[in-house]
């Protein structure tokens, strides 16, 4: 019971910090919007082509947007010293990092999923395909957060953020991208294969939910001692 209270308190604290002044909650969504808007300028405003590559663009945009906000999970707390307090608290570090990851997902990944249909409209993705694309994003973005959690912990332990984080996290997210785009494209071309792809996507999210907190807690423990 106490554990749940502490978990909820920590999660709410992180969410409050993210949505208030100086927080990064909406920055990710804004970045997502800008990246997707840039694509038609790069490949030309051919609606047929855009509809074809739309799912890939939305997935790539979501991946990059979540990557940009990942270092906020630990870096700010590390700067003002509250991470040390959290690490010495009685709450297991694995639970602490899970609470922070869930808060990150709710404040930065969920807005991406919410605005995705709007961006899909700009990319000429038909409504039915868009519904399944949103479903794939919903199923796959937790994996991005929990894999990114490891990278965020590693880079805060080494006091290096930014590019190092991208280099560490991106190779590990390749399977998520592959199955996310595969599921979205299956929904458009052959609906029979959609179930298989989205099941794998859910599996990836669950696996990273199991591995991510332990690896991130280990990285913090060994890195910040």
């Amino acid at each position, binding site marked *: 019971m106490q554990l749940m209270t502490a978990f909820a308190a920590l999660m709410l604290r992180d969410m409050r910090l993210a949505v208030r002044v100086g927080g990064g909650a909406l920055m990710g969504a804004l970045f997502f919007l800008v990246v997707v808007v840039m694509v038609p300028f790069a490949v030309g405003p051919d609606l047929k082509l855009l509809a074809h590559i739309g799912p890939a663009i939305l997935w790539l945009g979501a991946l990059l947007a979540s990557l940009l906000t990942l270092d906020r999970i630990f870096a700010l707390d590390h700067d003002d010293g509250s991470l040390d307090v959290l690490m010495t608290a009685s709450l297991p570090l694995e639970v602490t990092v899970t609470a922070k990851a869930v808060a990150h997902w709710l404040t930065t990944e969920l807005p991406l999923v919410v605005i995705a249909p709007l961006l899909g409209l700009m990319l000429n993705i038909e409504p039915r395909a868009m519904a399944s694309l949103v479903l794939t994003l919903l199923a796959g973005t937790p994996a991005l957060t929990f894999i990114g959690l490891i990278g965020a912990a590693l880079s805060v*332990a080494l006091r290096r953020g930014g590019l190092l984080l991208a*280099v560490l996290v991106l190779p590990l997210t390749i399977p998520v991208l592959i199955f996310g785009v595969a599921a979205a494209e299956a929904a458009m071309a052959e609906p029979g294969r959609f179930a298989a792809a989205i099941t794998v996507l859910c599996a990836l999210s669950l696996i990273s939910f199991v591995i991510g907190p332990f690896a991130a807690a*280990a990285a913090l423990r*060994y890195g910040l001692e």
Partner: protein
Amino acid sequence: MAVIDLANPTRFLRFVERVLPWLALLTLLVFAIGLYRAVNAPDDYQQGATVKIMFLHVPAAWLGMLGWALMSIAALGTLVWRHPLADVAGKAAAPIGAAFTLICLITGSLWGRPTWGTYWVWDARLTSVLVLFLLYLGVLALYWTAEDPGRGARAAAVLTLVGAINLPIIKFSVDWWNTLHQPASILRMGGSAIDSSILWPLLIMALAFTLLFFTLHLAAMRNEILRRRVRALRLMQAQQFAEARP
């Protein structure tokens, strides 16, 4: 001398000095035999002489994966037993494994051009090996950015263990996804699918590559231990210099 004695860096250095010349000599010898057998092996009836690329490609692929497996074991040593020699072993294996993986990718694409008609396809095996290479680069980037060797080693150990998930994916990628890269043909149920006139040179080359890996690894470990000693001496000197000044 018991194996446990090697856990002492000074004893380990003495062991390396004694073993390394012989190991290097053995590597050269096996390479000479392997290359001789590989050059004289018959051409494939379909592929012609390009089949010989396999004598470099397959051992390099194995060694690229062995490198990561070795780093994973060293990572356990780093995280569980906090052994400095495990840090050194992991760090020394990373660039060597990355080099073998790169050799595997390059030779594979050179073979793919005449055989498949393209340098690169986004096949499951090729992609998973490319991911392995990127993971190697990530670990190397961690080592480059860490100022304190111990801290860098622990961070790299966590990443190595997470990245080890990729090893079974590489191994089974040809079975799970039916794509362009041929399935396992040497270690498989029902014996090897390769004719012995090509299999034997391949196995000798694999042994030669393995010996080369361990020769390079021991030498790199020795260099890393010496590098850390130089670093410690320099830090000590700087401290003494700072204390001597008023």
